């Protein structure tokens, strides 16, 4: 649980650094997100006069929900402490409730940007969540369980060959991950244009430690999705519970390499694509939904896909 907390800002910092280098800029240090969080935590909170308790509570609720969800994803070893408590569907539900609160808080103060951001975010969520669930079903059908550790163990074993349905699921999962993490082409995390924002517009009214919590939550979410993709679809070298210290060390090293590779490809993709129109997003996520559906369907038709 602590590991994800420590690594999450680093991953975001790394993605930003790679993006800057791709644009031939120097870029901020990869440790900058830590400094940003510390700076925000020290700053005072400016609250709108008509902000309700919901607005003040939301940052902590969303952060807690995302943190718990992130702690449920195996990073470099299976057999986590809280493994027995929750499965993939719980993770989806935790992320969903985090977003629910954030969207409510966006509308709470009553500024027009918060409202725009919330309505766009919910529109994206309405399509991303079913797609995510279908992907979960697809994996569950293959592995016979929705417990992530079990899934990862199964994927790491030699029973799984090349499967069409899994290929569809991984593409769909990447698309959902891009949308959920407010990355290009769905949203631009670096924009200053208030009219084009989705996630940023929703949290525009936050400041100080509240903003730090929300930012931290966003870092964690990115790490969560990368870990999820890594553990389910690239489970190589993941340490199985109960093996020796050496395999843990190898697993940890492999995990870091996987994170770095994912971060690099994310930055590369973001640099090479423009943002899509807001009304193209449903088509984009609709494709993810269809891929998830097809993957599941193929599994029903024949176990060998």
């Amino acid at each position, binding site marked *: 649980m602590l590991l994800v907390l420590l690594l999450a800002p680093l991953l975001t910092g790394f993605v930003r650094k790679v993006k800057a280098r791709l644009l*031939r800029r120097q870029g901020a240090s990869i440790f900058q997100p830590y400094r940003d969080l510390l700076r925000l935590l020290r700053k005072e909170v400016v609250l709108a006069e008509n902000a309700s308790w919901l607005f003040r509570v939301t940052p902590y609720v969303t952060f807690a929900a995302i943190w718990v969800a992130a702690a449920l994803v195996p990073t470099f070893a299976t057999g986590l402490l809280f493994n027995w408590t929750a499965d993939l569907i719980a993770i989806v539900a935790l992320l969903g409730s985090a977003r629910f609160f954030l969207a409510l808080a966006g509308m709470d103060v009553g500024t027009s940007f918060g409202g725009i951001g919330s309505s766009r975010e919910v529109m994206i969520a309405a399509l991303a969540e079913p797609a995510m669930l279908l992907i979960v079903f697809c994996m569950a059908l293959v592995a016979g369980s929705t417990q992530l550790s079990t899934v990862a163990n199964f994927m790491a074993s030699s029973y799984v060959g090349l499967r069409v349905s899994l290929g569809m699921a991984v593409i769909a999962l990447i698309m959902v991950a891009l949308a959920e993490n407010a990355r290009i082409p769905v949203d631009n995390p670096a924009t200053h244009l208030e009219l084009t924002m989705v996630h940023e517009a929703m949290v525009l009214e936050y400041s100080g430690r509240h903003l730090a919590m929300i930012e931290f939550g966003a870092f964690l979410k990115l790490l969560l999705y990368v870990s999820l993709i890594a553990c389910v679809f690239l489970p190589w070298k993941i340490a199985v519970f109960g093996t020796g210290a050496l395999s843990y060390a190898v697993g940890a090293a492999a995990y870091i390499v996987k994170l770095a590779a994912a971060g690099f490809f994310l930055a590369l993709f973001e640099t090479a694509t423009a943002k899509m129109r807001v009304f193209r997003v449903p088509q984009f996520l609709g494709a993810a939904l269809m891929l998830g559906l097809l993957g599941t369907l193929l599994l029903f038709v024949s176990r060998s896909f």
Partner: protein
Amino acid sequence: MPSLTDLVLEGRSIPQHRPWPRVAVDTSIWEFAAGELAHGRWSLLGLWGEPSTVHMAILDQQAAAVAVVSLDCPDRRYPSVSQRHPPAMRLERTIRDLFGLSPEGLPDGRPWLDHNRWGVRFPLGARIDALTQTAPYRFLPVEGEDMHQIAVGPVHAGIIEPGHFRFTASGETVVRLEQRLGYTHKGTEGLMTGASLERAVRLAGRVSGDSTVAYAYAFSKAAEAALDLTVPDRASWLRALLAELERLANHFGDIGAICNDASFALINAHCGVLRESILRAAHSAFGHRLMRDIIVPGGVTRNLDKAGKATIRTTLDNIRLRFPELVELYDNTASLQDRTVDTGIVKPQLAKRYAAGGYIGRASGRSFDTRRTLAYAPYDNLRFEVPVLNEGDVNARVWIRVREVEQSIALIDQILERLPDGALGTHAGDRREAREGMAIVEGFRGDVLVWLRLRDGVVERCHLRDPSWFQWPLLEAAIENNIVADFPLCNKSFNCSYSGQDI
């Protein structure tokens, strides 16, 4: 159909006005001219006031003729032009704010530049005390169900100028956009009154920072026209060189910024490098990155030496190498094209009606470039094309800029090759009597118009009209039925000046 020449013959000619005729007319001819503008036979170039006179500059594009008609209004009222020809609306509201002349029949009674923060009303006219209480500025009403308003600005995220935008949207679709500008009013025209030519040209160069060359150029040409000065050849060619360098730098900045607003930062980064290379070349050749205060009435203040020439040549060679790749990247990135094509369309009829200059007019089929239509030295001696497209969308405005970059590079080549030797300026001389001059110069945004009257060696009255006056209203039209999230992209493709409009 009467031509502009016939109109000029109808009025009482003012002999000291150069180079185009100015005539004092009566109300009936004034109204006739407004009617012709509304019918689209002529285009409105400018409308400005004096304490008890209004002036209107008119262009007859087919005959390439320009004329100024003036109407005396001792009782402080004149027949409104905009009740027939809406493009004059904001100009008439400005005349009322600054001079207190009321346009009879103006459909819009709200102030424009005056936000009741000056402590005085009609600062260039009667100068009476400001109202202690004003009614709040009422935005135009929108009728219909499920409408919501989004107020943006005047303070924006990012480093841009202040302006307020009031969107009325139905869901994500914009039903109406209304602009409110005037936040950067500097009172330039008031400062001009009584200023010496040296000070006045510096003021002109500070109206809009990115067009400092174009403004100093237009002001100097107007002053020279008034004083009957002939500029030495070398100075005239150097001015064109400065103007083209400014155009290049701004177009690179714009192309990059438009792509950046579609979240495609790669082209922005490369265009930023190209723009910077132009600015650095300008710095080493002329001693100022934006080439400010180099053009003055009579000539230019700095010469271009061999080293400067070589620097500009090297910079251009580098651009010729790199720019085509960027254009190709723009053209081949499907996700970017998806954003720019068919977004924010300005219809050709509207561009013609508003006489929109620059890339906005030329992207919507209006073939007007001051360098060609009202050719001035040295452009009458240079080979270049005026690119025109008919689509009128963001993509077309990007492509016009791309083509203009290519034309500007070719122009700079010709200028450097054929730059004549000779003096850099002539002395302004000492003329006491009233003289009037007018000039229109193609800045990177479009046609910059300067009109002035000199008396006793100082500026008595000077009017500077930014091309943005006729471009801002088109942005309101272009965004209609687009989505809210596309506004930044449309706005950047217009890149109108706030400062130039707010004077």
